């Protein structure tokens, strides 16, 4: 039985947008929650949204990474646009898994300092995810 060779690009395309969008949404929700004008009730809701989106985003990276590895036949760096894509992907993958794990374990017990550090790393991670998505788009259009 032979597998359709286009299955991996299709699966990668189908799975990769979720973690990118969820990481950015988590950064948005948690980022908004620290502003002073936000009411306690809204803050709790934003933190809840940030909690679930970052965990789902972390979980969503696994199918995206796996399908990407199959798509590139195990090539973890490559060259040109692929190299740029991977230079963003690998740090973003490690960061989002770490952040998702930390958030799942700490829940609401985070100290203000701990949450501030978490938020800073989350913002960087969202940027890395966006970069990975941008160079992934370049691969489709210009390779």
């Amino acid at each position, binding site marked *: 039985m032979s597998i359709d060779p286009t299955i991996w690009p299709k699966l990668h395309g189908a799975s990769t947008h979720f973690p990118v969008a969820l990481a950015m949404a988590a950064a948005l929700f948690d980022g908004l929650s620290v502003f002073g004008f936000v009411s306690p009730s809204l803050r709790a809701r934003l933190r809840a949204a940030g909690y679930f989106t970052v965990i789902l985003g972390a979980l969503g990276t696994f199918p995206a990474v796996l399908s990407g590895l199959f798509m590139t036949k195990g090539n973890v760096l490559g060259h040109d646009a692929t190299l740029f894509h991977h230079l963003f992907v690998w740090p973003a993958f490690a960061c989002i898994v770490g952040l998702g*794990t930390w958030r799942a374990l700490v829940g609401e017990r985070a100290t203000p300092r701990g949450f501030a550090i978490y938020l800073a790393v989350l913002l960087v991670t969202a940027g890395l995810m966006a970069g990975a998505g941008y160079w992934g788009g370049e691969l489709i259009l210009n390779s």
Partner: protein
Amino acid sequence: MQPSVDQWSDARSPSSALAGGRDWLVDWLAKRALAVSVLAAMISLGGALLIARPIQFAMGVAGASATQAAQDAFATLVSTPQLVAEGAGFFGQSCGDCHGDDARGDEGPDLHGLAISNGRIAATIKHGVKGEMPSFARKYGDAQIAALVVYVRSLR
């Protein structure tokens, strides 16, 4: 019914979510959240990089490298008037029927100003597009395909 904010908070509280005998484990993990998170990130990243090896073997990395090397060779093509003329001849023989004699598109698409790499153009000529364009791998060798790529690239 929508859960209240307090209920959301409760759901996110590890101790209430995993009440009972597992509390100590949750507390233990929560106290070491940073270390566990870093470990999880390292294991995930390391696992992904490690799994790349068997995937390379399973999917025939030698073939992939050969294909990549062939595509790289097309990336450095140098256009000469002679090569363009040669490519135009091949184009008239094999491509004009679908892409139009002026390559402005007919059944097939307009080929002017393509925003794809030489390697991709060559691969498309060689392997075709399933259900849309035939493969020319048997008809043309790499030298002829290179001439076709140079010709198509010259279309502005």
